[in-house]
């Protein structure tokens, strides 16, 4: 009788030990996903150098007075964040360093755009615009010297 109970207890233990992992494996795999779009900001000065270490303040569309997230640009002037997709609208991201900086407005939701930005001209555009203003100055100077003569 004694030995019979011992065998039963041992078998029971064995079953429990074997059964535990089997029990865990019995569940299927469940993977859920929600797509979230991360937004990468690249901030540079107009001289082309990155705004490394610049402070970034992100404002959600529902509250434009309290920062939703704050952070710092890396050495390449990059900053990445994932906006809360439950808050569609225009997200404002301010990048600022030593009084330099700007705000970029990023639409999140249905009218989302892949890329955008503010500022930035090509060298030819800059040269042309500068030339126009210089010519304006020279023209003014010529006009007023002619009158004087």
């Amino acid at each position, binding site marked *: 009788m004694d030995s019979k109970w011992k065998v039963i207890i041992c078998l029971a233990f064995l079953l429990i030990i074997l059964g535990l992992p089997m029990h865990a494996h019995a569940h299927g795999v469940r993977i859920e996903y929600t797509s979230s779009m991360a937004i990468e900001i690249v901030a540079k000065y*107009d001289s082309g150098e990155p705004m490394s*270490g610049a402070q970034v*303040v992100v404002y959600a569309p529902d509250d434009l007075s309290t920062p939703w997230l704050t952070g710092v640009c890396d050495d390449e002037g990059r900053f990445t964040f994932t906006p809360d997709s439950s808050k569609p609208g225009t997200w404002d991201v301010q990048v600022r360093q030593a009084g330099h900086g700007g705000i970029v407005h990023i639409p999140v939701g249905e009218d989302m755009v892949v890329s955008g930005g503010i500022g930035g001209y090509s060298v030819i555009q800059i040269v042309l615009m500068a030339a126009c203003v210089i010519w304006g100055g020279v023209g*003014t*100077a010529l006009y007023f010297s002619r009158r004087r003569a």
Partner: protein
Amino acid sequence: MHIPDGILPISVTAGGYAATTAITWYSVHKINQKENPREDVPKAALLAAAFFVASLIHIPVPPTSVHLVLNGLLGVTLGYFAFPAILIGLFFQAVMFQHGGLTTLGINAVIMGLPALLCFYIFRLRNIAGRGERMTGAFGFLAGFGGVGISVVLLLVILLTNIPADLDAGVERTAIFTLTLAHVPLMAIEGAFTALMAVFLQRVRPEILVGA
């Protein structure tokens, strides 16, 4: 040195516009007292264009870079025309290159134009100290050096007193001081440049310099 839109509170930008209006009125009033107020317009137009272009010339001062301002030179050559010329230059910089901004046009004009006017007064002291080449060079250097120097101090004070609560004030303060220190070499460069220009003009066309 140009403060863009969205950095300063409205009260400061409005104050900047008020001060700019007052200084412009004073400058125009002084210009009208001249015998021929139109005489210096060609010079002012050319130097306004030079001021406009100067901001595109970047000088790397690690870890940042600064650009020429030339407000000392404008003060030395234009006198009371300096402030209106800088105001016009700043307007075009803001409109065309988004360098600075339209809301901050007033405060930027104060930051760069007011020192130009002060440099004109400094350079005029040459009339007392003597008009030799050495004195012209010395006062030219003082004007160029001081033009950027006073501007940087004004910028420093305005930025330090207007750090928004959302930012890490310590980090921003460090960044502001770094930017200020980066302007020290520029002060020397502009001082030397203005001194050379003043000596050159004194030799070739002394009537271009103020107080001639």
